[in-house]
């Protein structure tokens, strides 16, 4: 699909922004759960 040629700049920016936000959310949840377990494991 040669989609880039079909999408206007605003939509491309929206796609990029949504992707980055969702990826950061996923990464944040991963780190948060491990961090909370680390906190719980403190003596």
């Amino acid at each position, binding site marked *: 699909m040669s989609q880039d040629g079909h999408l206007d700049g605003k939509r491309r920016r*929206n796609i990029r922004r949504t992707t980055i936000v969702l990826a950061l959310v996923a990464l944040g949840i991963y780190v948060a759960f491990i961090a909370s377990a680390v906190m719980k494991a403190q003596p």
Partner: protein
Amino acid sequence: MSATQIHGQVAAHGHADHGPAKGIMRWLTTTNHKDIGTMYLVFSLIMFLVGGAMALVVRAELFMPGMQLVDPQFFNTMTTVHALIMVFGAVMPATVGLGNWMIPLQIGAPDMALPRMNNFSFWLLVSAFTLLILSLFMPGGGPAAGWTLYPPLVLQTGDALPLAIFAIHLAGASSIMGAINIIVTIMNLRAPGMTLLKMPLFVWTWLITAYLLIAVMPVFAGAVTMLLTDHFFGTTFFAASGGGDPVLYQHIFWFFGHPEVYIMILPAFGIVSEIIPTFSRKKLFGYDAMVYATASIAFLSFIVWAHHMFTVGMPLAGMMFFMLSTMLIAVPTGVKVFNWTATMWKGSLSFETPMLFALAFLFLFTIGGFSGLMMAIAPVDFQYHDTYFIVAHFHYVLVPGAVFAIMAAVYYWMPKWTGHMYDEKLAKIHFWMSAIFVNVLFFPQHFLGLAGMPRRIPDYSTQFADWNMVSSIGGFGFGLSQLLFVYIVIKCARGGAPATDKVWEGAFNHGLEWTVPSPAPYHTFDEAPVVK
């Protein structure tokens, strides 16, 4: 959607010069949502057969009391890997495949928003399951602690543990990327005029499922990462000897594990919500309520996880909370079941194979739902926990639930994919064999569980012999029936009566996918349709 009017050019025919590449490179490098959807579906079918073969090893061993065919360690490996393959390799990729194929077609998008990531997600999944299957051949055997991978038992796994954990990480990353792609596509590439509340239910259920995936797959990844560090790097997250807590793992696992159930079943709800109106020749009853019910189920799935852990022990208030919140899920689920029934009410019904599978879903998923409600009752769960009753319950939800919905979807949309009608006579034989054998397979397991037969054991008391024999006969019958499904799919892909663009008489104004030719051209919606 049934009142939706579609204007404008909906299918591009001027793109013939941009057809697929030839040979193996087409499949390795494709970024086309239809190709990737097909690859996901073929992959999930292969995994379905591999995981099914493992289930048959289990059922063959349980055909009679006593040790017949395999040693207990291998039996445990089979139950574990069967579950991991069916959950992460068969059901989830099948719904992702259907989403890849149908979401762009249903919302009028030219493709997924992130096509290269789409390709990467698929091949990552293939790598994950290659690793998982290879782990069976490691010294000490494959993973054998159950799909929940509870410590400390799982930490006794041999060299297969890091391989299996790496496979789970890869499959999780693949799922998260797939989910991001689906959300980004739906939020950014809908055709002009297609507001959120005009989207087909399948798209809605997938959107909510994708949010669930992003919320819980990292949780599972975190849990198995901690297992890995406990095993190899001296941490004691889940080891009581070092101040850790094995129950913490169970909480984290089920915080992922319960929404995971809805990740598998919500797209199935979407499929049934597409099929029942088509073969009832009516609009879906209560569209808005169906959307809100789906969202409610997704929300509630986050606050019920400890119902899997009643027997671990918890304060009475906690037990009450998780018992009542679990029962609450029956409300939005009931809304769905009643709305599907109301859609059929006074409809002009016909019973082609997709409708038969959807109706079987309606009856049999409801049985699984009711047995789930029974186990939500904490004092009663103490008797059912870790018995064959739970095995019967979740198999009713996942096989005549999720798997039947996937089969219904394949029969429903296959003419659009291939341009050919499938063999209706053979498909009906497949349906009846599947519907009969699935009940012969799983219904007796309720009796076994109520009589006290524990799950995950290779041998059992002779009092359980009769129903185990019946269940195993059902298992082999169900497995053989699926070979007919494979034959029907191959036959349809190779030829058959030509399908019309609309395919089904009742598919009037019901989704943009029916406005493109059959088979769907390699490129569709290069000019966005306008939905009014």
